């Protein structure tokens, strides 16, 4: 928005400066008006660009190349083998299973991570005293390293020593083996994830809630709307864009799950919780099949790109619809 008003004086200053220097510049004599800050611009950009090229762009390209080779950790099998890795991956039941586990985890975790965050934020935002205490309680787990979270929850889920089964036993309810049972392991991991990371979305919602103008609530209450009414017809719609962004980012974050699952179940029992990232890790660093692991990385990357594009276009369409 500032571009038109702001750029004009800068461009003039810029031209004046390069004109002053033109005498000792060979290229300036050509009289072509090109970008004027080449040297200083690249000077500022260089440190980032070098790191970006070496540690991001190069690995990305090299990984793509590796995915067409039979490369192993020992250095053998570096020759090109065409699409054999991709063919193998598409026929690999374990690969599909890890992808499906990942999608299932994403569905199971995203819903509570959005809904619980919203409920917490609305409750905290009603203006209760002790704001810092509520924020602290719900946000604190987010600051813990995954390993700390896993150590805590392995203990809590312990079938015999854990307080969860202790309570269930006292109430006369069944006591599942949680992480050791394929039927409950995924749910247990999801519950831990919600406890761990909901505080982040909670803070985002809280910030968004505080940006809703008071006047809207005042007007509503003058019209005789109660709290429920205001909540449903002001708060929730006003949070729409925030919810859209939180959902997008939560889905992307959940798809990349690895740490807590690997630490709590190593993907077990019987592969029931192994995620796509763990399958990349397992084939690469346990099986030492770098080529095959790279192929799976690229399949996973493609899934992420497709889901991101789908999400962004849905959000964009909703926004356009809302403006009508």
């Amino acid at each position: 928005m500032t571009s038109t008003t702001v750029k004009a004086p800068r461009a003039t200053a810029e031209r004046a400066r390069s004109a002053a220097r033109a005498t000792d510049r060979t290229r300036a004599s050509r009289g072509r008006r090109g970008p004027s800050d080449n040297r200083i611009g690249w000077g500022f950009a260089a440190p980032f660009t070098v790191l970006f090229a070496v540690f991001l762009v190069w690995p990305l390209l090299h990984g793509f190349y590796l995915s067409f080779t039979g490369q192993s950790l020992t250095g053998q099998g570096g020759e090109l083998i065409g699409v054999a890795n991709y063919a193998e991956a598409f026929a690999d039941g374990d690969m599909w299973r890890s992808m499906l586990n990942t999608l299932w985890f994403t569905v199971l975790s995203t819903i509570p991570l959005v809904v619980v965050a919203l409920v917490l934020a609305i409750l905290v935002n009603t203006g209760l005293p002790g704001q810092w205490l509520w924020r602290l309680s719900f946000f604190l787990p987010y600051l813990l390293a995954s390993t700390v979270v896993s150590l805590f929850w392995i203990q809590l889920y312990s079938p015999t020593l854990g307080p969860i089964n202790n309570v269930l036993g006292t109430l006369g309810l069944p006591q599942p083996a949680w992480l050791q049972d394929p039927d409950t392991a995924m749910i247990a991991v999801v519950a831990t994830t919600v406890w761990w990371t909901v505080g982040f979305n909670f803070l985002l919602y809280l910030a968004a809630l505080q940006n809703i103008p008071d006047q809207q609530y005042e007007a509503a209450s003058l019209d005789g709307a109660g709290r429920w009414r205001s909540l449903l017809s002001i708060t929730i719609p006003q949070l729409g864009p925030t919810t859209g962004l939180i959902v997008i980012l939560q889905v992307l974050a959940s798809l990349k799950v690895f740490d807590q699952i690997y630490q709590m179940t190593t993907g077990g029992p019987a592969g029931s919780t192994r995620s796509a990232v763990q399958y990349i890790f397992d084939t690469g660093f346990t099986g030492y099949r770098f080529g095959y692991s790279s192929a799976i990385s690229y399949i996973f990357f493609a899934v992420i790109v497709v889901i991101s594009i789908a999400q962004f276009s849905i959000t964009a369409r909703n926004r356009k619809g809302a403006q009508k």
Partner: protein
Amino acid sequence: MTAPAIAPTSDLRAPTADRGRRGHKPGQKPFGPMAVVSVVILVVLAVLWLLPFLWSLATSFKSETDAAATPQTWIPAGGFTLDAYRGVLEQGNIPVWLFNSLFTSIVITVIVVATSALVAYAFSRLDFRGKKWLYVATIASIIIPPQVLIVPLFYQMLAFDMVDTYWGIILPQAIAPAMVFVLKKFFDQVPIELEDAARVDGAGRIRVFFTILLPLSRPILGAVSIFVFIGAWNNFLWPFIVTNDASLLTLPVGLQTIESAYGIQYAQNMAAAVLAALPLILVFLFFQRQIIKGISTTGFGGQ
């Protein structure tokens, strides 16, 4: 936790927006029946959220015998003891891991913030050949999950002889395209007239950047630093892959090895977890305002 994806929120320039919002919503009774229900639900949830901490804390103060006894109780039969902490600290690894985490996270934060601020300034203010191309590549790369790069990066670390070194931990984590985006958006909002005035007085680009723009950007630089630091401190997958040497492990990776090394020692596991959790909790208690502000202003990052 992985590379943040970011979209700046509207209140980048209005950091005082949440003032004066402590009280109840205008026009509504402070303590109606809804408020009572809210308080009850909130208290229950807060207790639920704090219980895992408290249980782990209680276990860490039990003797190993009590920690393995059935049924488990909050207060152990043999009373509370510091044995588990003594045991963990005697192994001597935790202080080393703590240092490694602190050192690598600080270096990563410094590199990311410095390089991102420089390139963001170039994107925002300077006009150089290839700028558009570089900018598009940077923004597009936000979508790349770092997890898909682990194999080629490890391969690269072997080639650079950086496996089991601090640089091996640090360098692959020292790029954050999302932070470049956040900083560029912020610089775009700083009125250019401030710089023009200084430049008329003869100050060069570099001087303008350091004496005018950076001081104005202190809050956003603080927010970005906190983000990058927490991300680096808690990163597990990459340090786990690139280090093997027990003296080079970071705290999260070190903890992962603890269970197998100590066998099933519940109290010691919990004591180690509590010790590892403490530094960031202390950081949070000191910088609570800045962290919360940072998350609500740099918006959608982290995870």
